[in-house]
């Protein structure tokens, strides 16, 4: 999995460079690119729309404050942003809060839906199509996992549960959970490897 230098990603890094230089408009443009994804992810975790709005605003504020020191300008801007949004969302709900319905909002319900991101100079039509295809592949890959492997992955990613907490939740041993997490993630890696370059 390597990082590509095709134009959408180069454009995202250029946006980040402008953010580092203090150009507020660039932050708005980054929101145009990924605000939809960020809000969708926050909504899946924190549930309440106004809470999700606060979380996304906090996440973009963090981008604004710390872009210069993050190293993201040399890497994957979208992955960095989604990691911030997820972290902020889990912080918001309490990282170990039990909330069994979070993963209901995830993959299995969303295959085939449109990705609500606005088009602009950075988010080209080609980029949107690529994003949509990647999204569909991720959803199908998750949906094709054995149910128990998908469940442990979703509990970890969307609910922020530790392996021990997942084991408690599912009445499994911690060893079983660690094996299932690894197996599920490894299958995803094999299936998504061809798409990783386009996502990065």
């Amino acid at each position, binding site marked *: 999995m390597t990082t590509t230098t095709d134009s959408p990603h180069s454009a995202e890094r250029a946006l980040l460079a402008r953010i580092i230089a*203090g150009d507020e408009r660039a932050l708005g443009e980054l929101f145009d690119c990924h605000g939809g994804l960020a809000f969708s992810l926050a909504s899946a975790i924190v549930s309440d729309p106004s809470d999700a709005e606060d979380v996304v605003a906090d996440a973009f504020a963090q981008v604004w404050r710390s872009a210069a020191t993050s190293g993201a300008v040399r890497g994957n801007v979208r*992955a960095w942003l989604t990691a911030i949004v997820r972290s902020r969302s889990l912080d918001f709900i309490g*990282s170990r809060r039990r909330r069994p319905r979070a993963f209901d909002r995830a993959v299995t319900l969303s295959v085939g839906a449109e990705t609500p991101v606005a088009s602009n100079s950075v988010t080209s039509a080609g980029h949107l199509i690529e994003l949509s295809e990647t999204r569909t592949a991720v959803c199908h890959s998750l949906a094709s996992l054995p149910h128990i492997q998908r469940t442990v992955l979703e509990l970890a990613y969307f609910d922020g549960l*530790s392996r021990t907490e997942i084991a408690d939740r599912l009445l499994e041993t911690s060893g079983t959970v*660690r094996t299932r997490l690894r197996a599920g993630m490894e299958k995803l*890696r094999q299936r998504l490897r061809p798409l*990783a370059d386009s996502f990065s």
Partner: protein
Amino acid sequence: MIPRDRTEDATAYVLGALEEQERLAFELALNDSAELQREVAELREVAGMLALAVRPVAPPPTLRERIVSDARAVRPIAPRLADAQRRESPATSLRPVPMRASPSRWRFPDGFAWSALAASLILAAVMQNRYRERASAATALSRANSALRTDLASRDSLLGVLIGPDVESARLTAAVGSASGLMFWNRTAARVALVASNLPAVQKGRTWQLWGIAAGRPPVSLGTFNTSASGEGRIAAAVPPGLRIAIGAVTQEPAGGSPQPTTTPIVSGAFAERPR
């Protein structure tokens, strides 16, 4: 080839599914293995793609403006050089101040000159403010650099204890509460390291102190340490010659430490007895 349990930990690590102690132990291993770092980088890419699996929800139309508006009120860490240069360039050329033709010895500038004077004073104030901000940023960066060096030295010291053929460990647990720790004893290097988590904040004027206790002997101080805001504490220290540590313990003591424990240990744990 990465051992299977390490790959399992790597998966849980990128998903944030390790317990605190597991995470600390994994990060120590991660710091030392380029192969493990590559594994984690690849898994992070896959984990990052999971965000695409959520049901799409359109953000409220006001959110974009809120974010941009908030950004205007907060300066990013990097100095806004371009902006500063643009603003600091003299908007008003300071022409020679025309003086009134007055017989008075004291001549006062006219309205335009007052404006120019006010502009120059404002400009001076802005530049002084920016100088202060940059000096403050430089100081903050210097402090951050110093903190990073200290942290790196601390990690190196911890790693020095963990690496060796003769390292034993003890799990330190609490009778009450969620505090815990992992204590490592490198017999060859005669050093110990403790990685503790969920320690409560100590009161002002007090500190945490690590003890090594040999069977039938009074506790021996191995050093004092403080915790981060998250309750994480680390210490690496030398073991006095001849001390055969059977039990490790942590107590809260007055700042500077005590010759002997004055409080009940918050965490303690025994090293496995060594076959003779």
